[in-house]
């Protein structure tokens, strides 16, 4: 039971950390700090809705450039596939906002997979406090209790993590304890009277994770595939089609002017 509870709490912690981190990141980051390639585009809010939570493998991250929904930064891998994807993204967007592309190393899905693999470490009682996705720095940020820093179990865990994940993770120490509103500290000494709260929270985390997984599958399919299941890669891009629709308005019937203006005058 205790082990199950630990797992549920770990899922909850891992799930919440990336969201909190993303909110903080979007508020402070400025694309101007990056001397990387920049492409001005549009319809960023719609792109955000489509890609903010999950994305194909060539996407490393997506976040607000200036804290607003108007400007987005998208991290992609500097590979042939990544650069081709960049063009696909450009084809999807044609309004008047701005998107900046930056090259990053680890795909977002790879980082999320690492995040999944960290769950068992929460059960070791080796001082692991939190793990969260840091899309801007393209890594998983891991926090460990400072009081555990010199423990042999903690040192062993850190060594394992660094060997396994290298620069895909960043480990820091904290003396902050995770406190729920009821005042219960998360850990081995969790009071028994808080069990229902933790069970509920853990259950909710699993449900939300399942929902997001399903949405991920749906969104990815919608972006990449046609109704028939084939990938859209024809020579006529979406942007070109949109441009054609915008600029090939049908001829306005010349006789309609007089008809409408007369009809309007009769309203007087």
């Amino acid at each position: 039971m205790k082990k199950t509870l630990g797992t549920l709490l770990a899922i909850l912690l891992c799930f919440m950390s990336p969201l909190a981190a993303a909110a903080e990141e979007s508020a402070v980051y400025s694309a101007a700090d990056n001397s990387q390639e920049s492409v001005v585009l549009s319809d960023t809010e719609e792109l955000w809705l489509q890609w903010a939570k999950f994305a194909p493998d060539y996407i490393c991250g997506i976040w607000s450039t200036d804290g607003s929904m108007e400007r987005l930064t998208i991290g992609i891998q500097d590979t042939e596939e990544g650069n081709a994807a960049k063009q696909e993204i450009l084809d999807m967007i044609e309004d008047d906002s701005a998107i900046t592309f930056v090259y990053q190393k680890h795909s977002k899905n790879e980082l999320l997979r690492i995040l999944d693999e960290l769950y068992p470490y929460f059960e070791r009682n080796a001082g692991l406090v939190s793990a969260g996705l840091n899309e801007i720095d393209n890594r998983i940020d891991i926090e460990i209790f400072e009081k555990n820093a010199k423990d042999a179990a903690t040192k062993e865990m850190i060594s394992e993590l660094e060997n396994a994940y290298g620069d895909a993770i960043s480990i820091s120490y904290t003396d902050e304890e995770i406190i729920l509103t009821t005042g219960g500290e998360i850990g081995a000494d969790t009071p028994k009277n808080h069990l229902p709260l933790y069970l509920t929270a853990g259950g909710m985390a699993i449900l939300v994770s399942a929902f997001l997984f399903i949405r991920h599958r749906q969104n990815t399919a919608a972006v990449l595939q046609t109704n028939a299941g084939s990938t859209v890669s024809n020579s006529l891009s979406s942007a070109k089609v949109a441009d054609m629709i915008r600029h090939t308005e049908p001829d306005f019937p010349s006789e309609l002017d007089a008809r409408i203006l007369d009809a309007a005058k009769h309203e007087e």
Partner: protein
Amino acid sequence: MQKTDLTEHFSKLRNGDKSAFTEIYHELKRPVYTIALRIVQSKETAEDITQEVFVRLYASPPDASVRNPRAWCFQITRNLAIDLLKKQHGMQSPDTQDTFAPISDIELRMDLERAISHLPCEEREILTLHLNGGLHFKEISKIVGLTLPSVYRRYQKALRSLRILMNGGSL
């Protein structure tokens, strides 16, 4: 015409200056007609809708609380078009089994209109409100009564379908 100019013309029209109507008419007649035509797919019906929109506008212009009178006009256009479609066809979209030949410059325009006619009505209206009316997806979501992600997905699906059709494929 700048957005502020158009807003001023609407303000003048509200205050009884009927000469402002001509300015508004010449600014909005093409997008209104295009939106109507691309939704109903009939020139005669699109002309009737365009006339109805401007007669309504002339008789009772949007009050000052309407922040975007341009969007207001397109909303009336869309609503009239949808009402007519419901009466005529019960919102059924045309057969989408045709295969399109690859486009040439001469055939481009005809093929584009033909391809658009093969989209479901909901996609046609979102497409034309965005591309011909210049409305943002947020505004369109309010007009058509769908959530923002739904509007965006339909828009992207419409573009993908058109790409396939215009490249000689079939849906």
